[in-house]
């Protein structure tokens, strides 16, 4: 079920006013797409954070605007705790959209019991689908992943109506023996780093 954002039309702009808006538990956003006029709106911060927590990319707008939209872009603060601004793009039911979705590993790989380490290489893959068939995340079952095996993008099971746009040979997950921890404690390691300029000058003097 799509998340619902209650919206209000925004007439104010500017850093100071937006800062006050955020302090009041609201988030400024912009709505565009489909050749219609760009609209500025206000969203409820708790609703936005709930949608993001659930990994929802498609949301429905209520209130001053009634559209089905895609969360196109997010602007975070420097510590990555709060959303500062949202870009919302209008989408149609028949339209095909291209976007990146998260990959989630499910199950326990038998390779782990064989001494392997499961590594997720691609955290996101690019797909094309209609807004109705957009998955929140792509779940990859690793119950058959033994030591020395890998899963590529072409091996991922996709829901109906979803096409993979990422390179089919892109490595998604692997199970290999962990590389030995290299103790760099060797007698040869110098106490001080080499000076870049000095080495050059010495060779010039010799020449």
């Amino acid at each position: 079920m799509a998340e619902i954002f209650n919206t209000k039309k925004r007439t104010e702009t500017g850093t100071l006013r937006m800062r006050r808006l955020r302090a009041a538990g609201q988030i400024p956003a912009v709505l565009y797409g489909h050749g219609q006029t760009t609209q500025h709106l206000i969203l409820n911060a708790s609703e936005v954070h709930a949608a993001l927590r659930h990994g929802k990319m498609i949301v429905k707008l209520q209130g001053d605007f009634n559209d089905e939209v895609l969360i196109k872009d997010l602007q975070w603060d420097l510590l990555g705790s709060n959303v500062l601004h949202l870009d919302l793009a209008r989408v149609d039911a028949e339209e095909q959209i291209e976007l990146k979705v998260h990959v989630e590993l499910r199950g326990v790989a038998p390779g782990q019991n064989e001494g392997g380490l499961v590594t997720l290489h691609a955290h996101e893959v690019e797909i094309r689908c209609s807004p109705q068939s957009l998955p929140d995340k792509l779940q990859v079952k690793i119950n058959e992943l033994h030591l020395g095996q890998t899963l590529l993008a072409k091996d991922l099971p996709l829901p109906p109506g979803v096409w993979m746009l990422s390179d089919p040979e892109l490595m998604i997950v692997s199970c290999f023996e962990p590389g030995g921890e290299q103790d760099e404690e060797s007698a040869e390691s110098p106490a001080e780093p080499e000076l870049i300029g000095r080495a050059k000058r010495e060779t010039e003097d010799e020449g």
Partner: protein
Amino acid sequence: MALMPKRVKHRKVQRGRIKGNASRGNRVVFGEFGLQALEPGWLKAQTIEAGRIAATQYVRGEGRLYIRVFPHRSITSTPLETRMGKGKGEPEFWVATIRPGTILYELSGVSEQQAKICFARLAHKMPFKVRMVARR
């Protein structure tokens, strides 16, 4: 052995000031969870190594630890009971300059609960406030 650059342009640098927040190196990139600094400061190479040991002892064989910071800056000091003058002291140790928001370590291949325990052990070693963040 603690981390240290292989080649440098200058052995000694001026002290400088740490201003502002981290505008790069502030996202979890390699793993699923990260340890984020909330205060500015210098992180010694020995401290980075101590954190690495504390974390790898916990996640041994299960997950993978990524170190996202490197000590590029040398810190000098003059010996005790030395008279004033005679120039700047000799490099004593190496530090990484940390701004609020910098991701220090990352973990992959572990559950959220395991990452929480691991980073709690690691946080004890840190000289400033840190918190755990998840990839988004």
